[in-house]
């Protein structure tokens, strides 16, 4: 394999995979195994990704905005606005390609929005990348020979993530810091899962992000309503014993703050108005973006309210913060990865307790 050396005696790779391919699939976290230990179903000619046939299934017909646009489902992951081309004519319907037919598949900046020009997907059918089997709608991107070398030498830091199929990089690339050890958190839409440094699931908590009506991964670019954008965040675990979030003396709103903070039970402003903070709960921890497209959104937190909605923060149920505070006694920070299995993933984790 081009990417990594494979040891036939142990039936494992000699180095760890740079990519966690499927965080919602336990074998995806074992970065030394070949094809999730299922070689009959998958193959991995590059060493980077397990692959299977590519199936593009049209789910919503013509998405509008042009005769070549269609919405497709690819291995359960919704891909929007894919225009299939055969020569110069557009067409629609369901398509299945075998690995032998498809050589390269690009995927650019997931979740750019249904009509965004920042997202793109192209599948090439032959080795010289001349005949496109499928093309995502992108009015600005053109086939550029300078991009081709990235296909044969995947770069984990390249936001224009590409893959050799199998699991499309709605699984985005996890950077080396996460994989170099230490626990980490993965938010998958309705659960916040806690993994130890070996990639084993330690605990899971119900979690919600976004407003009702927008609690679906594809709305992550909607300000004040959509769920938290996919990406990597760092949580500062510093905590003072009585550290309390501060409230504005004029507006009563809780001011932004880093680390783990308790929320005051009430606060009275200088003009005598009293506030309480049920939308926060009793404790919060700020999420500092490390990578990913934030769509101009900012100020995300984990917090333990039980409203069943947020304006982009992650509302976490159970005793998540107890574990976080314990972990913070021996660690300065923890990484949180927001990764939605598909754009149709629900981000409501049943956290409403009236």
């Amino acid at each position, binding site marked *: 394999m081009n990417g990594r050396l494979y040891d036939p005696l142990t039936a494992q790779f000699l180095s760890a995979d740079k990519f966690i391919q499927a965080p919602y699939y336990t074998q995806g976290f074992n970065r030394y195994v070949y094809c999730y230990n299922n070689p009959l179903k998958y193959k991995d000619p590059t060493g980077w990704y397990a692959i299977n046939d590519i199936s593009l299934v049209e789910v919503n017909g013509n998405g509008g905005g042009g005769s070549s646009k269609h919405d497709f489902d690819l291995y359960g992951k919704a891909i929007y606005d894919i225009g299939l081309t055969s020569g110069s004519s557009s067409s629609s319907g369901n398509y299945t390609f075998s690995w032998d037919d498809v050589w390269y598949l690009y995927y650019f900046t997931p979740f750019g929005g249904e009509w965004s020009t920042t997202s793109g997907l192209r599948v090439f059918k032959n080795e010289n990348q001349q005949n496109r089997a499928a093309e995502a709608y992108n009015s600005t991107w053109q086939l550029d020979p300078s991009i081709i070398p990235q296909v044969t030498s995947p770069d984990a830091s390249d936001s224009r993530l590409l893959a050799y199929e199998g699991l499309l990089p709605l699984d985005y690339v996890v950077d080396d810091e996460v994989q170099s050890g230490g626990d980490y958190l993965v938010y998958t839409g309705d659960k916040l899962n806690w993994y130890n440094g070996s990639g084993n699931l330690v605990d899971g908590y119900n979690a919600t992000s976004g*407003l009702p*009506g927008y609690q679906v991964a594809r709305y992550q670019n909607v300000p004040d309503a959509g769920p938290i954008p996919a990406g990597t965040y760092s949580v500062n675990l510093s905590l003072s014993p009585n550290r309390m979030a501060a409230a504005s003396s004029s507006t009563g709103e809780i001011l932004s703050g880093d680390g783990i903070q308790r929320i005051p039970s009430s606060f009275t402003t200088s003009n005598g108005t009293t506030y*309480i*903070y*049920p939308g926060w709960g009793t404790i919060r921890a700020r999420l500092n973006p490390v990578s990913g497209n934030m769509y101009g959104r900012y100020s995300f937190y984990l917090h333990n*309210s039980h409203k*069943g*909605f947020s*304006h982009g923060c992650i509302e976490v149920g159970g005793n998540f913060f107890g574990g976080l505070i314990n972990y913070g006694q021996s660690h300065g920070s923890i990484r949180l990865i927001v990764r939605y299995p598909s754009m149709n993933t629900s981000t409501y984790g049943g956290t409403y307790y*009236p």
Partner: protein
Amino acid sequence: MGARIILKNINLMKTLLALLLLIGCLRQNEMKDISIEYIKESYSTNEALQVTLTNKTNESLFYYIGLECFINDEWREVVNDINNPKSKSSIISKLQVDEKKDVSFLIEKVLQDFIPNFDTYRLKINYGITVDAINKQNYSHPFKIKK
């Protein structure tokens, strides 16, 4: 003699029934510490929603009003506080014993642009006897909002 006894029993039963009804009414009032009156069946977004709250208890109550909508066969909260719709904080008001208070708010100001086009809503009164113990709820009759 027999007829007189029967008549006496009937009167006794009537009295008992009246007492039961009275107790029932009293208990119903107990269950609704804050009554919510004058909710219409439907509103348009550019309308003001006006209700009257009454404290039915014998102590002052602190409260704020949220908004719920009916989605997928369950009630879900969409606005924490109608006086502070985009915020995680709630502005606390006080309702004295037996006080009636008219509450009015513009629907479009509460829904703004971020609430999707749900059909059925209800107000959720969160209240308690102290600011730090707002842990009870009462709900208005459901109403429609036509966008």
